[in-house]
């Protein structure tokens, strides 16, 4: 009696109940206020956006609630600026000064350290953004969070990224998947810890495809160049040349992004399936084609509305994720007690500055 069962048969456990007519006044006033405040309102705008999107996300029997505020995100941003200032000053002042004084070695060494530092901060930012979002997300009066500061994750992030880099990105899928686990295994909702055991199983083929795409392009490009050379020697056929140029264009601007999308589509499906909360199991079913429609739709929207449509991207992306998300299993409401994690005061400013998403 105290519990809610959901197996995905009788209606979806996660539903998006918003509509664009409801969201339009929010988007329009956000754009107006961001413009007249020279961008400062951005933080309050995103708080309003999330408050709406969360309140229209129905999970099992009630909606989510977002309690993050624009003020805390604004202060989070100021904090990030303060942290980034030394890095900025180094790149602007110390580095050119060292080079100008002929100390290239010292300059290069310091620059390497600075860039490693920035990398650590990116890892830190990803962790903090996720922690912040969970701590401001409520369901049934219960919130999520984490007791971890994120610094150990930041170190792991640097290490695994370097490993991926050192192996010419052959180890990238391992780095990606293990970082997903490291991140989510530190998070909780109420008393329940998240569990993630994502592996590279079933992902390697798509990574290989993305990995060889540039090489394949080189080969195809070479063949096309040979054809061009051949056709030039015989008779220049305009149509053939046109086809070849269109082909090259398609390869460069379509093949690699498509292969990337192809990889990430499966990655997120696997990642969701490998993640659970108590006896709740997550799922995600967006295919490459779904993602492609989302992105092309975003671009088309922005173009048709002369840029105003960009204010709808957040809405489109969130509703896309919710529509493709699944939840299976069982949750005991009486045992879902309040989170004991410390509610972090600062926000995801770190992630904002680096322009990163939370997942």
């Amino acid at each position, binding site marked *: 009696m105290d519990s809610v069962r959901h197996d995905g048969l009788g209606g979806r456990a996660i539903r998006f109940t918003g509509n664009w007519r409801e969201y339009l006044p929010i988007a329009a006033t956000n754009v107006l206020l961001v413009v007249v405040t020279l961008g400062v*309102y951005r933080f309050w705008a995103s*708080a309003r956006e999330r408050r709406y999107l969360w309140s*229209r996300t129905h999970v099992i029997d*009630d*909606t989510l*609630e977002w309690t993050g505020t624009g003020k805390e995100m604004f202060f989070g941003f100021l904090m990030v600026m303060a942290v980034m200032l030394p890095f900025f000053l180094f790149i602007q002042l110390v580095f050119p000064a060292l080079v100008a004084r002929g100390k290239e070695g010292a300059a290069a060494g310091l620059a390497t350290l600075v860039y490693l530092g920035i990398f650590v901060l990116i890892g830190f930012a990803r962790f903090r953004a996720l922690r912040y979002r969970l701590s401001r997300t*409520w369901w049934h009066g219960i919130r999520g969070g984490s007791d971890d500061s994120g610094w150990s994750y930041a170190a792991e992030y640097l290490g695994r990224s370097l490993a991926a880099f050192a192996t010419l990105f052959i180890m990238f899928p391992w780095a990606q998947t293990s970082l997903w686990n490291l991140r989510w295994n530190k998070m909780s909702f109420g008393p329940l810890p998240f569990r993630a055991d994502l592996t590279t199983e079933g992902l390697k083929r798509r990574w290989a495809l993305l990995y060889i795409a540039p090489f394949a392009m080189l080969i195809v490009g070479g063949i096309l160049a040979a054809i061009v050379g051949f056709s030039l020697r015989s008779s220049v056929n305009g149509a053939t040349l046109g086809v070849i140029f269109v082909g090259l264009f398609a390869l460069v601007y379509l093949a690699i992004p498509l292969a990337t999308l192809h990889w990430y589509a499966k990655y997120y499906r696997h990642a969701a399936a490998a993640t659970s909360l108590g006896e709740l199991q997550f799922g995600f079913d967006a295919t490459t084609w779904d993602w492609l429609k989302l992105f092309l739709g975003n671009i088309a929207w922005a173009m048709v509305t002369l840029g105003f449509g960009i204010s709808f991207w957040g809405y489109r992306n969130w509703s896309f994720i919710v529509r493709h998300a699944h939840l299976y299993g069982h949750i005991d409401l009486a045992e879902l007690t309040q989170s004991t994690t410390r509610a972090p005061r600062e926000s995801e400013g770190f992630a904002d500055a680096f322009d990163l998403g939370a997942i």
Partner: protein
Amino acid sequence: MRGTLYDGTTAFPHAVTVSTAGNELELTTETAHRLVAPLDTLVRTDEGGRVRLGRSDVSGWRLLLDEPLDPDLAARLPRPGRYGGWIDRFGLGKAAAACAVVAAAVVAVGYTAPHWLAPHVPVGWERNLGDSIVGDFGDNRCRSPSGQRALETLAERIEPGVTRGPDRIRFAAFDVNIFNAAAIPGNHIIVFKQMIARAQNSDELTGVLAHEIAHVRRRHVTEALLREFGIGALIRLFAGGIGANAQQVASLSYTRANEAQADADAIAALRRANVDPRPTARLFARLAKETGEDRSYSVEWLKSHPASGGRAKLFAASFDPTHRYQRSLSPDQAFALNTACVKFETMRLPQGPTKPDRVTVHPASGGPPGSFEVR
């Protein structure tokens, strides 16, 4: 009315009956438990058909009420926040208008800041930058002592004392094939070889120098630095560098207003120095012809630099036929300046009548090394 309560301790929903009593919200559960919540702790969010109430003193406490609310209850509840504290207080229209005014003021201050800030930047801050730029040209400097003296004499005609004292401007000629002269941060003015070689007499060069001196004295150089590199340039100048190379700094552009002011100053300086402005006008006219400028006004308005044709007219118009003008340099000095960038060991002086002020020296084609001919 009926509602759903989450107590913030567990996720379990309690069905409650809601009413108000004094300053409190009274909740009665199905098991006849009576709970109260002070009205002044309530925080309200509207969620499209449903009202969500939270309590500022109990984390996670939520009361969900379906709309429409009972009228007497609705009257006691706080209003929901919408755009954020300040904007809700003033109303969207008023707040947006006020913000727009402030934003316009900020943009205006930002746009004009370089102009009123530049005169207050100590010249000393720019010295490192200027010295390093002049140093960048290093080996190309024209080192003829008599040429340098002539250049400085010319400058002294325009502004007596300009090459001396703490506010002095340092002049240098460079053996670089550019038809231009430029004011450089830190009170430097540099003149390139083509400018010297193609000026048909020293008076033409005087007008150009007067124009550049005006840029320096009016702090247009600093203004342009601040405009192009942002206010951050101030910190970087103070710290002794700007992270930009000589070419970037040399290609700084002035605003139309600055250029017009420098022209006006140059015309006034020529008048004070008794130098005929017409040669300068001719120089600009030649420049106009070379750069293919026509008489259309649209071109002039699109460019930050006033069209040379227009400037030529301006200089020509300042000619006073009743005034007695003096040549800016003696023939010897003019010759020294003209040959300032010519590296020679020996030189055959011209034979026969020549107009020394119009002499141009070219390395002799096919002659012995180090020989020159004068055309």
